[in-house]
């Protein structure tokens, strides 16, 4: 996600404002510490011109 964001020359704050979340949420998302809702994932993907699959990967913890 960071890669897509920097490619568009967007700061974390600008992306956060564009998708209507706090900057910390973007920080946690980029650090892989927060699982976004489908709605937020879609908004971010739309803003970054990517697909949800390209931005986020799902790991099944239960195996």
């Amino acid at each position, binding site marked *: 996600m960071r890669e897509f964001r920097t490619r568009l020359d967007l700061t974390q*704050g600008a992306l*956060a*404002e564009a998708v*209507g*979340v*706090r*900057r*910390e*949420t973007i920080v*946690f998302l980029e*650090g892989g*510490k*927060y*699982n*976004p*809702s489908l*709605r*937020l994932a879609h908004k971010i993907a739309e803003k970054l011109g990517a697909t949800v699959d390209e931005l986020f990967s799902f790991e099944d913890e239960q195996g």
Partner: protein
Amino acid sequence: MKLKRTLILTWAISLAVTGFIIMGYVWTKKMDAQSLILTLAVYLLVLGAIVLTRRRRQSRGGNAVQKDERTIRLANRAASYSWMISILAISGLMYFEYLELLRLSAEQVLLCVLLVMLATFYGARAVLAKKGDID
């Protein structure tokens, strides 16, 4: 639009609370004029402090979003923990009362519960916010 709605809501709640305080004074007659003025003054001070804190937070963050899905999720989980711990605290107080280890008045119990709820809510929220998510 959202700010206007929030302001109207704040004023409506403030008026309602003021009304309740005055109604309590007029109907119960248990409160003297000095207590009424003191209650209203404390209420206005608390309200003023809340409004100022919010304003300061807003001016520091500019147009930044104050709460989002993550913070709401964390607050909900923190409230759940707070409720659970409060129930345990009440059970503990009841047990102490049953064993006659502790004698507390109703006011003291209410204060205890209030403090436990506030402390556990803000504590849990701070811990969860550092973690980032509730999983």
